[in-house]
């Protein structure tokens, strides 16, 4: 499987292209941070959910795009984070919100570790995919029978946190303030994942994905790196869920089923699973289509379905891959001229 990444931050290319990526990213982050002053609360909520979906899709793609392991039940990890954070805030666990987020991520990683240790040695490919679906469905059943987690109704009326740092407090109870915190958190998580995939760890993941036998031959502990990837992916998905609970202020069983698990897959395929930024681009595209077609019930599903068919047939590497091909063609033509 070929791997493509955009050369943001790379030292090759002309001076303009070297700086274009970081400058564009910085402008984008600044715009996102000040979005409460620029857009109405409805669009702001959509932007916030898109940021969360981006992290969720990145977590899935770390597993599939970088390590070659498919998960069709990733919503289970998302739900672990969402329900834990929702319960911690709703029932006032007396935990600092940052600690709550860390525990949520660790819970996701621990569940991934448990599955990984038991299953990853033998179960890869379709077997792992089915196992993750089973995990999610089982989790949904357990929550559905848990009165403390709201059963079928979901856990509603989740309060937003106030973070006490001793010398000062950060009040996130207002939606705009929580949104700004979300932007900072998402930037930190994306930066962390960027570091992971470009570190020695990320290179080991890619080696395992490309040829597990050859990776083993050169001394890479394939099982261990698959478990690492699964843990980071599960933990990140749980973090995405944890960040969503105070934004939506309700967590329901909608988020714990196979349909919810398809969302990061669709976003990654749409944006391009061979690129680090592909899942983010896919999440933005999906949300944009959803928003534009909101007045036409059912149209967004048809449009997304149609676009996915076109993308798979015309550009299997997604929107980012297609843009890369166009850029290559443009550059070649330019060279010829």
């Amino acid at each position, binding site marked *: 499987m070929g791997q493509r990444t955009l050369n943001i931050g790379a030292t090759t290319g002309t001076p303009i292209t070297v700086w274009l990526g970081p400058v564009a990213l910085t402008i984008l982050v600044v715009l996102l941070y000040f979005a409460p002053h620029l*857009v*109405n*609360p*409805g*669009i*702001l*909520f*959509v932007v916030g*959910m898109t940021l969360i979906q981006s992290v969720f899709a990145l977590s899935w793609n770390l597993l599939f795009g970088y390590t070659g392991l498919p998960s069709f039940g990733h919503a289970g990890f998302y739900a672990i984070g969402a329900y834990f954070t929702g319960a911690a805030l709703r029932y006032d666990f007396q935990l600092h919100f940052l600690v709550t987020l860390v525990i949520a991520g660790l819970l996701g990683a621990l569940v991934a570790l448990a599955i990984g240790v038991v299953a990853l040695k033998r179960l890869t490919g379709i077997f792992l995919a089915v196992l993750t679906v089973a995990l999610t469905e089982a989790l949904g059943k357990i929550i*559905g029978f848990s*009165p403390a987690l709201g*059963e*079928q*109704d*979901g856990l*509603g*009326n989740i309060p937003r946190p106030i973070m006490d740092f001793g010398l000062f407090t950060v009040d996130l109870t*207002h*939606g705009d303030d929580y949104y700004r915190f979300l932007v900072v958190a998402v930037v930190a998580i994306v930066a962390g994942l960027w570091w992971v995939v470009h570190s020695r760890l990320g290179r080991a993941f890619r080696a395992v994905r490309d040829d597990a036998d050859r990776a083993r031959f050169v001394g890479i502990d394939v099982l261990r790196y698959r478990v690492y990837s699964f843990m980071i992916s599960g933990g990140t998905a749980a973090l995405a869920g944890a960040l*969503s609970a105070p934004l*939506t*202020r*309700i967590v*329901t069983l*909608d*988020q714990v089923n196979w349909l919810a698990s398809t969302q990061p897959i669709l976003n990654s395929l749409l944006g391009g699973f061979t690129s680090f930024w592909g899942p983010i681009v896919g999440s933005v595209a999906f949300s944009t289509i959803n928003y534009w077609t*909101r*007045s036409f*019930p*059912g149209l967004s*599903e048809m449009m997304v379905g149609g676009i996915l068919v076109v993308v798979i047939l015309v550009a299997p590497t997604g929107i980012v891959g297609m843009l890369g091909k166009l850029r290559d063609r443009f550059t070649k033509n330019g060279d010829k001229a």
Partner: protein
Amino acid sequence: MKRRTVLKGMAASAGAALGMNATYLRAQSGPIRVGVSYALTGVGAPVGTQFLQGTEIAAMQVNRAGGINGREIELIVRDDKYNSAESVAVTRELAGDGVNLIIGGSQTVTALGIAPLAPELGALIVIAGAAGMPVTHQLFNKNIFRTVSNNYTQYGSFGRSLIESHPDVKTWISMAPDGDFGRDSALFFGNAVKKYSVEAAGEEATVLDTIYTQGTATDFRTQINALMSSDAEGLYIGVAGAAQISFFQQARSVGLYDKFKVIGEVGNGEVTGKAMGRNTYPNLWSVSYWNHGLEPFKSNPLSQQLYDDYVDLTGDPFPPALIMAGQRSAMGLFDGIRKAGSTETEEVVAAMEGMTFDTPAGPCYFRPEDHQMLCTNYYSQMGPSREEPYYDVMQMAQIDAAEMVEPANPGKPFSLGEIE
């Protein structure tokens, strides 16, 4: 300078001096914009689309009569996709566009998402169809009004209605989906049967343990076998939609129709009637809202007007009962605006608290403490017919919700132990 220009300038200056901006001035003179957020796609769509038709008819009726204080109603419709996060998104979007009066929550899952938002958005939200108890209990805030009976009132009234009309049925059983709604509705139904059987039949009826199933099941052989081997003669079915139709199709073939003297169902109503046709169970009672051809609706001009408008709009002579629920929800809000003489959230909230208004199902009243609407609850009796549509609604039973509602306890969880 022309005189008109000078006058315009003076008016603008006066507006600015009063602290009013152009948006505010426009909002006070243009159409009254009302947001509508129902499930129009997804598994909740069959309910949400019927609510929407009723709400659109209500707006059409008001506009035909000249609007409210000369201003027409403009509905801004959004699809919540039967998803709580989506319902939050569309409600925030509506509020961001300056819409402060919203009708939504055609089902509990979406209502639980939007109800806590109302104060933050400065909006008044009418919860149209969500019967879950938390809406007017732990999730209550003064900006929400519920225009449907809650589960306790609805299914308690249903149990009471059936035992009062069938005092000879001494043993009852329920079959319900294994979720909080299914368990609650069967519990409230059974408790009411036991309580009101003493007065109706002179002795307490026996209510057997509920048989649980999946809400989306298609195979009911195990449950039907358990029902057939029980001593029960009265049955409550808590499963809805296509699952209920599958149940009746399978139950009929093994003689369940002959075993039970009466069956009550959760509210499928005409959906089951249309699907079963001539094979409809002959004494099937349904949670219902409206039937234009029967009393007390037949002699109610509002009901007849609703029927005429529905037929004009759709060409369908058999309106589903939920149309009235959607129309009634909107009428409650429109009457609140009319009474307040304003579209400001605080003023409409104040006007609706304790307000009584007329509906096709008779007068309804908003309890001031928890904003729960109290009307008459209706239950229809259905059976097979030789004429199209091959099922017939024979009569409507009614129970005053005020007699069956729990005491107002806003802000606190609903507790059955504190009531019974």
